[in-house]
């Protein structure tokens, strides 16, 4: 019972307690055969892990089921069909045909294109804002910052993810929009840039945390080797550590993009919610998620509008799913390449 003696010494216990510890450990001696308890425990853990999978599947099935009447229900098809959602429509005969989102009109029209453009615009601005800041911050904190500095920076940036999105949205609505309009002279106070920057604030912690973890976990042996070959710290970071950590950084960016597309409250408050198609980033936008959030609360159950909103939900679900899968594939490919180079 060498271990017990060592333990006792380490804790500087008197020898009486050492004996007590010894008897205690003998009692605890593990049985080699697995018991029925372990068997059940194992099963429960397995079920738990599948429960999440099952839940996702159920959610998808439910959302899709509610959207399905668009494809076959006659009453709903009078008002909306996939074709109508894709092509231009006019309010009445003789008026210009346009892409417009007018669900409460006397002639309801549900064009998806304005919402799609809006969602992409907001996500694009958010990524343009968040990726340089998030990745740059991660490089500084993992490579250049002193240990003490890092202990301050990391929790503070991660604190950003703890800010409720409704607070970020409110901030963008009241403060940021005024500031941006005064500085850049936008015609529309609430626009895609305002929403995108606020969205970026929510995305930064995701990009930062995952990139930082990836950068930190690059083996020291690689860095040491580069340093030994005469590289300076800057060269080590940018030619060695950064490429080695790239799969992790890419994963952070992809997850951040997923968040930017799905985030609701910020865009609902800060984007102006006008469903228009324009190439001007100073115009207002309306996104998928904000549309669902704003309209689902009072829509008549089972109506065309209701099905369309669930159809939007399905699309949103599929988008984020594809983005995540795509990210995963890229990640694995890069990882394989990286490890091949390293060996």
């Amino acid at each position, binding site marked *: 019972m060498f271990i017990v003696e060592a333990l006792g010494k380490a804790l500087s216990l008197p020898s009486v307690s050492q004996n007590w510890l010894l008897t205690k450990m003998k009692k605890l001696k593990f049985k080699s055969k697995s018991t029925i308890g372990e068997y059940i425990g194992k099963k429960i853990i397995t079920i738990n892990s599948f429960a999440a999978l099952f839940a996702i599947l159920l959610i998808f099935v439910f959302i899709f089921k509610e959207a399905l009447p668009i494809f076959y229900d006659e009453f709903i098809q009078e008002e909306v069909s996939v074709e109508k959602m894709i092509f231009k429509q006019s*309010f009445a005969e003789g008026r210009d045909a*346009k892409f*417009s*989102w*007018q*669900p*409460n*009109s*006397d002639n309801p029209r549900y064009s998806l294109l*304005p919402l799609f453009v809006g969602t992409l615009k907001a996500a694009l601005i958010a990524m343009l804002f968040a990726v340089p800041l998030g990745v740059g911050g991660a490089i500084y904190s993992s490579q250049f910052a002193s240990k003490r500095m890092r202990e301050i920076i990391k929790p503070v940036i991660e604190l950003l993810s703890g800010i409720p999105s409704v607070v970020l949205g409110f901030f963008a*609505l*009241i403060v940021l*929009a*005024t500031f941006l309009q005064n500085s850049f002279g936008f*015609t*529309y*106070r*609430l626009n895609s840039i305002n929403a995108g920057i606020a969205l970026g604030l929510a995305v930064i912690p995701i990009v930062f945390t995952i990139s930082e973890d990836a950068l930190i976990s690059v083996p020291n042996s690689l860095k040491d080797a580069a340093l030994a070959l005469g590289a300076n710290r800057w060269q080590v970071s940018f030619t060695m550590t950064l490429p080695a950590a790239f799969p992790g950084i890419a994963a952070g960016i992809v997850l951040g993009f997923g968040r930017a597309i799905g985030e609701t409250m910020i865009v*609902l*408050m800060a984007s*102006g*919610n*006008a*469903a*228009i198609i324009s190439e001007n980033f100073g*115009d*207002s936008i*309306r996104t998928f998620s904000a549309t669902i959030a*704003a*309209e689902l*609360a*009072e*829509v*008549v159950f089972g109506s065309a509008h209701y099905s369309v909103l669930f159809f939007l939900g399905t699309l949103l679900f599929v988008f984020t799913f594809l983005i995540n899968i795509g990210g995963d594939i890229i990640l694995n490919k890069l990882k394989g390449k990286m490890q091949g180079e390293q060996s």
Partner: protein
Amino acid sequence: MKKVILLLAVFVMMTGYIFSGQTITIKGSDTLVRLGQRWAEEYMKQNQGTVIQVSGGGSGTGIAALLNGTTDICEASRDMKEKEYKLAESKGIKPYRVSVALDGIAVFLHENNPIQELSLSQLKGIYTGAIVNWKEVGGPDHIIILYGRENNSGTYAFFKKRVLNKEDYADRTQTLPGTAAVVNAVANDQYGIGYGGLAWAKGVKFAGVKESDNDKAVMPTVETVSDGTYLISRDLYWFFNCKPTGKLKKMLNWCLSDEGQKISESIGYVPLSKEQASANLIK
């Protein structure tokens, strides 16, 4: 342990109290919820033992609750739709409608906007997108920035019906969650225009509204809404299942009394005219 027992005892007593038959639930319009709450507070003070629960959620939510039998009183800023009346009939519910207050929808402008008044047809042009620039209605040469409410709002629907004659809002109308957000947006936007309840306006000015260019514009005030001269006004309703009796009748009549109507005026709603209030009383 003692604390737990004590808490349990208090809880049991409270549930007993609540289920003693004097509970009234009120649910519905977000426009009316503040009024409902103030009335409930005052009424509970004067009638010990009556418990009133008030919640918002929108006119549609309130009407759905009435049809499902989960609320005694439904507050709504619009009449029930034909569909909803039919649904009520099929469920054996006989909606009884009483208007309890009035509401004027004001048109908000930025304080520096030189425009003082707009006609209904100009407003319609502005909000349908036919009029794009302020100079077309006598203002500065700048694009008009449209602010409105989300399409689930009763105010959205009312304005669409009354001012736009059921035409669609222009696509570039920025829709905001809540009248407070609209007021804030217009207060910060020199070329903005918005609409919403009278009680909410702070930091913006009202536009006078006239039927046509030759008429005299009327500013939205408590008096002009109450006597019907302001053009964009509506009734705010309470719906009951059947004609109210007992505790519900007592409460309704109190709300329609001078005392109840005074409370509504004190928090920015427009009271009914005396004749209408007494006509709505339940004998």
